[in-house]
């Protein structure tokens, strides 16, 4: 087995890897048209399903890849402790911003790269301000609402008391049916 810990701990190399992974990610997001305001709003208005198609095929592929790599000991799971106060409340606030801006934190950077000035002067500036605002609220939130309604199970196999491979198989079938359904309905 390959020992990758030295690579993981090398901060300058990791900064370079972050840049390279970002370049590939940005290239793919732009080619997938999900850096376009009209495509993201179209998804939220349920007229264009490009965003869901990209996300589901990424999760489908990554889910199987992650499982196989984990069995080989090449990756480990990174899952945060979940709670309704964090994931549900934060998710809904995110949704409001998602629709007002028309980009998400990754695609806004991609939109800047393709020349969208609303993404740069509205989106990026707003995101930096919002991050600063959150850093001020964090001491209160981390002892309050973020702890509310903690989940006992952190992963789907734990929650369903099922074996991981079975859950992945079932999820994969559901995603394929959903994607085939979207195509069948003409989206």
């Amino acid at each position: 087995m390959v020992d990758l810990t030295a690579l993981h701990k090398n901060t300058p190399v990791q900064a370079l890897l972050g840049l390279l992974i970002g370049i590939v990610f940005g290239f793919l997001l732009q080619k997938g048209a999900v850096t376009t305001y009209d495509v993201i709003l179209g998804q939220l208005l349920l007229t264009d399903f490009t965003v869901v198609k990209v996300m589901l095929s990424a999760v489908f592929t990554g889910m199987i890849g992650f499982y196989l790599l984990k069995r080989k000991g090449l990756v480990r799971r990174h899952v945060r402790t979940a709670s309704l106060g964090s994931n549900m409340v934060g998710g809904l606030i995110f949704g409001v911003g998602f629709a007002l801006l028309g980009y998400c934190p990754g695609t806004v950077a991609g939109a800047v790269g393709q020349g969208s000035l609303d993404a740069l002067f509205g989106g990026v500036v707003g995101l930096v301000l919002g991050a600063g605002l959150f850093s001020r609220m964090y001491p209160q939130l981390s002892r309050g609402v973020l702890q509310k309604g903690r989940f006992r199970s952190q992963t789907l196999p734990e929650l369903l008391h099922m074996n991981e491979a079975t859950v992945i198989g079932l999820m994969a079938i559901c995603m394929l049916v959903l994607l085939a359904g979207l195509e069948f309905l003409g989206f």
Partner: protein
Amino acid sequence: MLGFLGLATWSPYIVGVAIGLLVCLSLVVSDRPLGCSTGFVKTCGLIERILRGKNVEKTEYYREIPPRVDWQFTILPGIVIGAFISSILSGVFALEWIPPLWAATFGRDIGLRIGVALLGGIFLALGARWAGGCTSGHGISGNLQLSVGSMVSSACFFIGGILTAMGLMSLGG
């Protein structure tokens, strides 16, 4: 080969599969799920460090997410560069203040578009940090690791987004 790289768009399935593989690669070589919203905390922290000095690093949140130029920061300029290359290769790069759908609904007032986008950006960062991730961190990287929190977050991203988008567009008439 430039023929394929020069296409304006690729099939969402090809893009999705490639992103799924990229997340796996990131977990192997960097031991990190691919995520973007932490980068904005780092950006804000780096700006604050310039404006207010090194003491900002003692802030509780910046102790957890130190303002440094590291993986979680460099991914953001990376995305800008990658999307720039893609849009140049296909010839679709264009400076644009107002997206077509916005112009058709609310007109061509740049101030209105930037104001709403700014407000959206603030909500987006607040929500992403509140939930501990964004559409990439939870929506893709977390879901593929079968995280329950990521599934709840992703569902709420879309519930909040769909309701807000439909309300917003009904204002434009």
